[in-house]
């Protein structure tokens, strides 16, 4: 119940923010406000997700804490990607994609009837498994693409945002002298950090990452992990990972997805603090998985 009490408070605050005059004013306010204020919690209630008639996950409930890193682990095919994509309504981009249940962002159901998915995605950003910079754009334009395509900004403001987000994504030093070169000219690891910077630039409240380091070399992976450590001071982070050590190292909470019988939909088998999941899991399958006995 505490969860919902807190949510109510935040909702009131947000509404108060909204009432305060012009959008421009609010923009400035939120940017100068303490970081903690921007990160939001997400609450998932009895979520099932479908592709047409195929049910990919069923009955998932989860509380994603603000300013924490939540890791999602589990064998492949058990619905981790499907789940993370329901959190910013990217799931419905897939043919036949639909859900049952509720997903609350800061107390509001993102699937409520009048909610525009475009607005949800501005507040819940996403980094994909494969780096996907825009091929026609320079490094600079890639970073500010979301801003340029969604609202007007002054050039000086953009410059500042580019430097700040590239620093946050641990890429600034490598690209500061070639911002006008094509985004696709970078290495895979650099491209992925560019995609992280691009996501940060639109100032979301929650950042979703679906195996962001699975295709990268160890050094790039390290850099992304370092960057994430800092990200959680400003954002709520959800990350899918295949890498058990990575989950244990960086996350505060861990959710284990699992399919018991072939053909069943995936379930959230266990969800707890990361320490607990890795040292003293509540279910046998979780233990088997985190100790590498199957996977």
């Amino acid at each position, binding site marked *: 119940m505490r969860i919902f009490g807190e949510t109510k408070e935040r909702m009131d605050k947000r509404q108060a923010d909204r009432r305060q005059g012009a959008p421009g004013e609010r923009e400035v306010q939120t940017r100068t406000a303490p970081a903690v204020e921007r990160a939001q919690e997400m609450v998932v209630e009895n979520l099932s997700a479908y592709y047409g008639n195929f049910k990919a996950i069923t009955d998932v409930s989860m509380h994603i804490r603000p300013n924490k890193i939540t890791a999602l682990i589990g064998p492949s095919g058990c619905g981790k990607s499907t789940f993370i994509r329901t959190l*910013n309504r*990217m799931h419905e*981009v897939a043919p036949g994609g639909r859900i049952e249940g509720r997903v609350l962002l800061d107390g509001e159901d993102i699937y409520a009837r009048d909610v525009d998915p*475009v*607005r*949800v*995605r*501005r*507040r819940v*950003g*996403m980094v*994909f498994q*494969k780096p*996907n*910079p*825009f*091929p*026609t754009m320079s490094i600079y334009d890639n970073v500010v*693409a*979301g801003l340029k*395509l*969604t609202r007007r900004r002054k050039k000086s403001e953009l410059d500042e945002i580019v430097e700040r987000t590239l620093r946050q994504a641990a890429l600034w030093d490598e690209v500061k002298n070639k911002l006008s070169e094509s985004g*696709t000219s970078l290495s895979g690891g650099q491209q992925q950090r560019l*995609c992280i910077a*691009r*996501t940060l630039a*639109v100032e979301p409240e929650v950042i979703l990452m679906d195996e962001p380091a699975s295709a990268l070399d160890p050094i790039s992976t390290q850099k992304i992990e370092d960057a994430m450590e800092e990200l959680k001071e400003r954002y709520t982070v959800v990350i899918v990972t295949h890498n058990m050590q990575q989950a244990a190292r960086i996350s505060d909470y861990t959710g284990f997805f699992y399919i018991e019988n072939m053909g069943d939909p995936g379930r959230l088998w266990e969800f707890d603090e990361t320490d607990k999941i890795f040292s003293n899991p509540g279910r046998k399958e979780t233990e088997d998985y985190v100790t590498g006995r199957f996977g």
Partner: protein
Amino acid sequence: MTTRLTDVTSNYRRRKLVDSVMTGVAYVCTAVAVAALGFVLFYVVVRGLGAWNLEFFTSTTKYFGEGGGIANALYGTAVIVAFAALMGVPVGIMAGIYLAEYGENRLGNVVRFVADTMTGFPSIVLGLFVYGLLVLAYGFHGFAGSVALAVMMLPIVARTTEEIIRLVPDSIREASLALGVPRWKTILRVVIPTAMSGIITGVILALARVAGETAPLIFTILGNQFWNTDPFSGAMAAVSLFVFEASKSPYEAVQQTAWGGALVLVLIVLVLNLTARFIASRGSVR
């Protein structure tokens, strides 16, 4: 019992033999195709270059006697193709975008079928169609030819645009959507720029395809030996039509200018194709 690697070789020898024979056949076929093209080019250049001089490019067409050029025909081709592009290209591109992004339904399939049928349509029938549509009411004029050519371009532009937009990876679309960019803006500002060089290539190839068309012009612009700069009234000349008419002339000198006109047509198509290749080679999706 072990076999040595060199045992059981008959099968391998046969394969190797068939391989070299087939490779030889492929080379010969390629040589024949290239030779045919080379011969046509060579012939047109040799016969056509002789007709090229200042008078050829500055005076109007003549069907008998000496001299004469293609100035009015060049002008006609340029204007007619330009108007055709003005009509056919935007509609074709928009149809292609529709097919690629929203066309996964019955209407999309119908449009696709119609476009493919139109691509294979005999061009003279298109000319007849426009004759009935415009010429009967307004007489022969250049714009009627543009309409016929635009109808020819439309399905080519639409289908190449569709194909090239489909080549844009979904991951790019998802990246944009996940930034909170609306679908229409994603298509307009991310997908189309990514596909742009391919779209332009398709447009140029469609231009090259119709620039040399003759049949649809016979019933629409008729041809004209004199200057007519107004595409909206009166018969007009075009290079392809001139080549067709002049080559039937008994006058040696007129036949000569027909070859000159043929060379001009070949060069136009060649330049357009080279431009298309150049643009395509610099694109993000090919």
